[in-house]
């Protein structure tokens, strides 16, 4: 088995990297893939909290790097999904406890046993970010429809290209469709026009995400939730499936403009 390493990053903090990591991992595992997600945010861990696994941590990523335990021992199995594991970050150390080559080594080991290794990157462009993208086969950028987040995403896309990990894929998180219709928010189309990378997901702004995060239960596992569906669609697109963007999260004009843009972008790449 040769697993794919997918790194979730953003540049700017607070756009939903950890939530996206938890939900995409859960959705992939729910589809029957063997998945391990890894928290690369050493010192500010929270993927364990979002997955509701905080109280089961014995060993962490830094313990693996420094040889105090085997990778297997640091993996925590999810409560709900048989095939989902978490490798938590250390809370009492900092980013410098791990080097990019450590991440490559650990991921190479994990590739043999898992279909997908999903890495939650810390915010920023320093060591933690470099650690997170060093082993990546694919990089997914999370952004919000807001100028500062898009600006940072643009910078990150450039850095990912420079590290030859590109082209990155894009998820626009926290889209409020009503506001987009009123023209209040930077629409997805505007974001895409600037960033010009492949869009693999649009996630609505939904207070249910907050509730599920606080409960430690990924919303991707709630079959009726539209937001959960958005994350499941992202997971399917990551596996290579063609999933059309659902018409329910926007009016026709918006979607029309969007598909036109996606069309142009593909034309440009050809």
């Amino acid at each position, binding site marked *: 088995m040769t697993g794919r390493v997918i790194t979730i990053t953003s540049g700017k903090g607070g756009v939903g990297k950890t939530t996206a990591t938890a939900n995409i991992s859960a959705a992939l595992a729910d589809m029957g893939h063997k998945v391990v997600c890894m928290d690369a945010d050493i010192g500010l861990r929270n993927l364990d909290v979002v997955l509701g696994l905080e109280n089961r941590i014995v060993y962490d990523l830094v313990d693996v790097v420094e040889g105090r335990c085997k990778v297997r021992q640091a993996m925590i199995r999810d409560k709900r999904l048989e095939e989902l594991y978490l490798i938590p970050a250390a809370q009492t150390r900092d980013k410098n406890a791990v080097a990019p080559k450590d991440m490559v080594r650990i991921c190479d080991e994990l590739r043999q046993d898992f279909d997908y290794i999903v890495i939650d990157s810390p915010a920023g462009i320093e060591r933690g970010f470099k650690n997170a993208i060093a082993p990546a086969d694919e990089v997914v950028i999370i952004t919000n429809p807001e100028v500062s987040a898009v600006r940072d995403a*643009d910078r990150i896309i450039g*850095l990912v290209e420079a590290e030859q990990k590109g082209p990155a894929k894009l998820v626009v998180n926290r889209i409020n469709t009503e506001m987009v219709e009123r023209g209040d928010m930077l629409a997805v189309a505007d974001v895409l026009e*600037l960033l010009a990378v492949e869009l693999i997901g649009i996630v609505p702004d939904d207070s249910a995400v907050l509730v599920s995060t606080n409960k430690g239960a990924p919303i991707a596992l709630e079959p009726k939730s539209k937001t959960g569906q958005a994350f499941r669609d992202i997971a399917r697109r990551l596996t290579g499936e063609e999933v059309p963007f659902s018409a329910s999260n926007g009016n026709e004009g918006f979607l029309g403009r969007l598909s036109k843009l996606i069309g142009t972008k593909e034309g440009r790449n050809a």
Partner: protein
Amino acid sequence: MTDVDATQIDIKGIREGLLVTLGEGDWPQLEQALMGELQRRGDFLKGAKLIINVDAHELNVASMSRLRDQVTDSGQLLWGVLSSSAQTERSAQLMGLATRIHDGSREAEAEDAEEYYEEAALQDLGPDSGILVRRTLRSGASVHSPGHITIIGDVNPGAEVIAGGNVVVWGRLRGLVHAGANGDEGAIVCAMDLAPTQLRIAGHIAIPPSERGEISPEIARVQAGQVIAENWTLG
């Protein structure tokens, strides 16, 4: 001159190790001051690779091997000797010491700053030459040239383009642009969509209005001490 001030000895980290620069003075005093300094900072410098710049002092093989032994005794390694004297350089080479360091500063900086444009290669260009960049410049990217710059692609907000000559963007220009950066008031900036965060020509700075009408190719230049932009039309 007999007294050598130890404060004139400068030690700084470079890629290869520590570069030691000596002050003025006669060699025996300099050597003594150096050894004193190495011993004083012994713990801090333990095991360090030293590259010593002896400037024009002439050292034969015997005095250089004495220097090496003393450095070894004080717990460091003499790795290289830089000198403008051919005699000294030859002695160093005979002893297998490095006599050249590559200027790592630019390289290291470029790596750190994630500069993915080879600025170094552009240094030799004269003002009448130019470069062509065929990609989109994203936030954080920067292109500099003493000549002209043509970009086929967009210049996103947060990216910068700085040219001694003119700047032509075959795409959307939304970042910072500076044409005529060396003071040429005749420089121009043109783009398919001219909407930079800031536009500079020579010493003039303009902030384009945020409200814009229909997008069309525009050209900006300095006229009567003001930066103006007009539609770029055929004929």
